[in-house]
């Protein structure tokens, strides 16, 4: 009798408490909700996942995590009343990229200025994104078209720009000579960065913002 019983127990389903643990682990690790059939396929032979799910659902009642039915599948989800913990409002401060700040400076000092002129002054091409971004920030806007062949569009700075930088008019911007006199030019960038090829590369690789 004993060998027989042993043999039978080999094919017997694990106790319900064990089945519950198994379903719990399966649903936890699964990357998508699992249907009853999928759960059953993963459990040892003879298991009754439907019953295990009932027990499991009860166990998680009122907890921070709930067993949820989604269509005909099951998954764990954090309790809806705790959703606020998962959210986090963030204000991220980012510095303008070098390409953006240089473009902005050229617009401010030379306005109204065309894209071709900006490129000539910077010595590198200006990516579309750079000007778009400055326009989106409402620091630069479109000015009148220039009365030269092709009637290119010009760019000018906005009132928002003046407010942000604490200027009354664009004419308040100090000139290069004043900058030098004020010692603001002593902070020279390393010579290598001034090679035009490197800057061109810079602009390609660099994200808009650093």
């Amino acid at each position, binding site marked *: 009798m004993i060998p027989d019983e042993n043999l039978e127990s080999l094919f017997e389903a694990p106790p319900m408490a064990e089945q519950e643990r198994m379903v719990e682990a399966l649903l936890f690790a699964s990357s998508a909700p699992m249907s009853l059939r999928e759960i059953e396929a993963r459990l040892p032979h003879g298991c009754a996942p439907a019953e295990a799910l009932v027990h499991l659902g009860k166990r998680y009642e009122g907890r921070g995590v709930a067993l949820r039915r989604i269509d005909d599948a099951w998954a764990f989800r954090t309790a809806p009343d705790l959703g606020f913990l998962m959210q986090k409002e963030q204000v991220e401060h980012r510095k303008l990229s070098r390409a953006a700040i240089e473009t902005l*400076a050229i617009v401010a000092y030379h306005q109204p200025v065309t894209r071709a002129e900006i490129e000539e002054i910077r010595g590198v091409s200006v990516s579309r994104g750079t000007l778009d971004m400055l326009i989106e920030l409402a620091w630069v806007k479109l000015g009148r078209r220039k009365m030269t062949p092709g009637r290119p569009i010009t760019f000018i700075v906005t009132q928002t720009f003046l407010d942000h930088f604490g200027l009354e008019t664009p004419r308040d911007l100090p000139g290069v000579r004043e900058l030098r006199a004020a010692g603001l030019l002593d902070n020279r960038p390393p010579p290598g960065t001034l090679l035009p090829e490197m800057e061109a590369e810079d602009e390609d690789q660099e994200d808009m913002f650093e």
Partner: protein
Amino acid sequence: MPDDFMQEQNEINARRAAEALVVDVEGFEGPLDVLLLLSRTQKVDLRQVSILALAEQYLVFVEEAKRLRIELAADYLVMAAWLAFLKSRLLLPPDPKDEGPSGEEMAAHLAFQLERLEAMRKAAARLMARDQLGRDFFLRGQAEIYTRKKTIRYEANLLDLMQAYARIKTKEDFEPLHYQRDSIFTMEQALERMKGLIGEAIEWGELSQFLPEAWRNDPKRRRTAIASTFAAALELVKEGRMEIRQYDNFAPLQLRQRAAP
């Protein structure tokens, strides 16, 4: 016939077993690894392993590799030389004038190294036998990604703006950097010079003695001369034409001609 076949097979097996250690040199992780395997043939606790016997076994291994024309990496040969030295120390009565470590100390350290390597091997095996994430236990399959309400605020102040502009407007002020090549003593120059000097360097002499006269005083020139002369010396050591030694950390480097073998 089957008997013949069996015998032949046995001979092949015996030969293979004899050669296995040598032929499999590719599979070894360095000389310590070989020593560890050889030590197992002694069937004793690693703490009681006979280093003398081990040294002999290793030297046989290297000889065998040479006979089979198997190219051994340099560190295998360095170990062979060291073990030959150790063997002589262990066999000869200690010389009271000798200040170096005794043969027993050296043997004890080698035994320690072997025991430590063996211990790390076992530890590695136990580590890998542990339950592992993604194999035996699992993380949450469907992490509920935090919804981040992200507001980006861009920052730039007037100073940034002005400096950016100044950077553009003063580009022409800058010159690309050129190294002043005239105060560099090149490796080629040093090598040329050293080749001329080694004939006279029979006794040990400090590196500084090999610097050219004109490069000894000015710190900048001296620095470049030291660097290139050292590099040139290493090159000559590699070619087997010089020897180099240093007694302690930061002690002066000493060079001499290597006597012809």
